């Protein structure tokens, strides 16, 4: 697990901070700062809060790899990655505002409580100026709320629920990843082209907030184009065996099964649905088909052969051919020997975007950094021209519709990009999802 590349040794040395025995209580050190955790020395600390235990540990590990790469690039080490293709040229490879970037890490355990505890440690003890990472919406929303209260910036990791930049949005929080609304808008036309407008869908939905969000978006867009919804059934998170929910599907009159599941649930429900032979059947005179709205390449590998030909959406994929993606895949692949996941990509982008915003603002003060991020337009980070919308701190960019690959050339080659849905098609009014950013908090 912890193989250390020799070439990274110097970098690791510089990144080591605040080990046991040298940390002074911050009560005494942080009294006269202009804002929370204002960096006083020659370094500035990022807090990488990712799942290291539990179901999303591998995804968290990939995020951490990407963060380390981003820090390297910001500090001017390595090949520079997407800094070379990034449209903003503010970062010069000498850290941010003249300070070198160092980082601390923590384990979210994919639990709101643990994630908040871990983020608090970074803020209170390690003096982190920004918290980023995470692999679920519940955690993202919980940590975003915390960062708002504490007065630091939160750069969300992998979080797909509408609420993160909708109902629960906060001024100090920013999300690069897309959401269920965009998934619905991007996926529906592709489904229409492939399966027609006369379909009946059966939803299995993970019984928690993200699941509801996903189901709502897919229903909204598929029903708008003429699909009917036979039934939407909530399934317990971590059910393991979904057979009792799959058995009624064939007799329900539905000819499409939509699996609003993520991670382990997705792997299990998809594997089991395929085992039930659903895809070999014909219903209403059409081939029965399965849709997985949100794909994760890392997790999809767990479902093996079963993903072949199944449509879904993803934030980014390493096979993209634009200069930014290629630069990122190249420097990530060189460092670790395999291509990055979408989680790695979004977290790398977030670290870079934050650094760039601080550099352009000339300070780390959350309100100033926030203002320089809000409404920021950029390109060259792998998703085409992108905008951090000021109204809800959500990135708007093209969305990828993907399909499980029929003939993979390697174990990383699981998905193929079917369509790049242009940004215009997935945009919506910020007011649609409700919520209130509120003011920036500088702590």
């Amino acid at each position, binding site marked *: 697990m912890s193989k250390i590349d020799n070439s990274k040794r110097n970098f690791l040395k510089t990144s080591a901070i605040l080990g046991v025995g040298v940390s002074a209580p911050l009560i005494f050190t942080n009294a006269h700062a202009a804002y929370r955790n204002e960096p006083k020395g020659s370094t500035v600390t990022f807090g990488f809060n990712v799942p290291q235990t539990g179901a999303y540990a591998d995804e968290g590990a990939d995020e951490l790899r990407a963060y380390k790469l981003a820090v390297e690039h910001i500090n001017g080490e390595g090949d520079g990655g997407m800094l070379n293709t990034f449209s903003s040229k503010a970062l010069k490879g000498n850290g941010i505002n003249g300070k070198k970037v160092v980082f601390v890490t923590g384990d979210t355990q994919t639990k709101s409580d643990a994630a908040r505890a871990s983020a608090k440690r970074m803020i209170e003890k390690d003096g982190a100026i920004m918290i980023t990472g995470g692999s679920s919406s519940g955690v993202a929303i919980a940590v975003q709320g915390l960062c708002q209260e504490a007065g630091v910036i939160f750069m969300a990791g992998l979080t797909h629920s509408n609420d993160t930049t909708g109902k629960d949005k906060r001024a100090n929080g920013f999300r690069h990843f897309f959401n269920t609304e965009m998934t619905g808008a991007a996926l529906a036309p592709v489904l229409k082209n492939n399966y027609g407008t006369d379909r009946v869908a059966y939803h299995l939905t993970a019984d928690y907030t993200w699941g509801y969000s996903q189901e709502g978006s897919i229903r909204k867009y598929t029903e708008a184009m003429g699909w009917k919804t036979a039934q939407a059934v909530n399934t317990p998170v971590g059910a*393991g065996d979904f057979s*009792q929910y799959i*058995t009624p599907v064939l007799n329900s009159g539905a000819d499409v099964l939509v699996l609003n599941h993520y991670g382990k649930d997705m792997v299990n429900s998809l594997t089991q649905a395929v085992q039930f*032979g659903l895809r070999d059947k014909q219903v209403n005179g059409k081939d029965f088909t399965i849709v997985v709205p949100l794909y994760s390449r890392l997790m999809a590998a767990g479902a093996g052969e079963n993903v072949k030909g199944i449509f879904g959406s993803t934030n980014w994929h390493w096979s993209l051919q634009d200069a930014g993606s290629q630069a990122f895949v190249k420097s990530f692949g060189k460092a670790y020997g395999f291509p990055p996941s979408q989680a790695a990509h979004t977290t790398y982008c977030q670290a870079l975007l934050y650094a760039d915003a601080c550099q352009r603002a000339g300070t780390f003060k959350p309100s100033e950094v926030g203002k320089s991020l809000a409404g920021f337009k950029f390109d060259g980070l792998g998703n085409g021209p992108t905008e951090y919308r000021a109204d809800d701190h959500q990135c708007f960019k093209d969305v990828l519709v993907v399909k499980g690959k029929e003939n993979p050339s*390697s174990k990383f080659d699981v998905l193929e990009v079917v369509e790049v849905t242009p940004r215009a098609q997935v945009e919506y009014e910020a007011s649609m999802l409700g919520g209130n950013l509120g003011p920036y908090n500088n702590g």
Partner: protein
Amino acid sequence: MDAFLLQVLNGLDKGGAYALIALGLTLVFGTLGVVNFAHGALFMLGAFCAVTLQSLLTLERVTLDPEKLTAWGTPMEIRTPYIVEWFGDFGMTLIDWSVPLAILLAVPIMLLLGVVMERGLIRHFYKRLHADQILVTFGLAIVVQEIVKAQFGANPIPQPAPALFAGSADIGLWLGFAENAVVYPWWRIIYLLFAGVVITSVFAFLQFTTFGMVVRAGMADRETVGLLGIDIDRRFTIVFGMAAVVAGLAGVMYTPVLSPDYHMGMDFLVLSFVVVVVGGMGSLGGAVAAGFLLGILQSFASMNEVKSLLPGIDQVVIYLIAVVVLLVRPRGLFGRKGVMES
């Protein structure tokens, strides 16, 4: 009617799985009296026997293709499993059948693990408080889990069933229903049969062999049996090994249904305890009956008709049954008096 039949079938299948998963725990917990929180870990280790065999079978010769480059600029690797190189199509078949073949691997490995665990650790805890047993076995479970995670990662690893058993059987057709009315996956039917065979063998072994007789006597009164000059300790070791094998086999065969990951044991731990206790401590038959009862009722509680009446019932049904059974029958379905009551 067909929906009903389908849920009965599904309940039986789930019940079979629950019973098989809990069977090993009944042996250790219900009869030896050890609160074994590492039972889930044994189940998980069984599943990883399948993973190990699969990765052994798919050990690959890696050659570099000088023509093609990966996206990050290194030469593309061409991977061919040795076994396919050596045996051709037969090699492919071996890989295809890796899950059933893993049984052959799992039996000796799990037996060894069980015996080592009992000799090295558990036997020092027979007389200790249950709290101590919980702490030590829970600690062991975590250690085992983390080792597996360090080796295999945290993501689920797919273990497909042999191609022969892919897809589903249209059972409805045999019974005169319409096409697709009652469809059930082949592999789950196999699992149910497998569970039946394993459970029957364990029963037969304990019921009809002298070994089993001595063990059952030892459970009732360990000291007296010891006084008769019978080495009951050694037999208990074997029982523990047997429990490990049963847990492991349940794990191996479950992998096509549930892609194994390092955490899968913990997910089944609570369920196993509920099955054993609802069945009644010390009763193998009780555990099997409880497994089927819970499986079938869970299946029915998940029907849309039921869920619309009682939202969320499918999430709590298992615990609800546990509460009702334990309040109506103080020692579970078939529990013996005085076992683990203090």
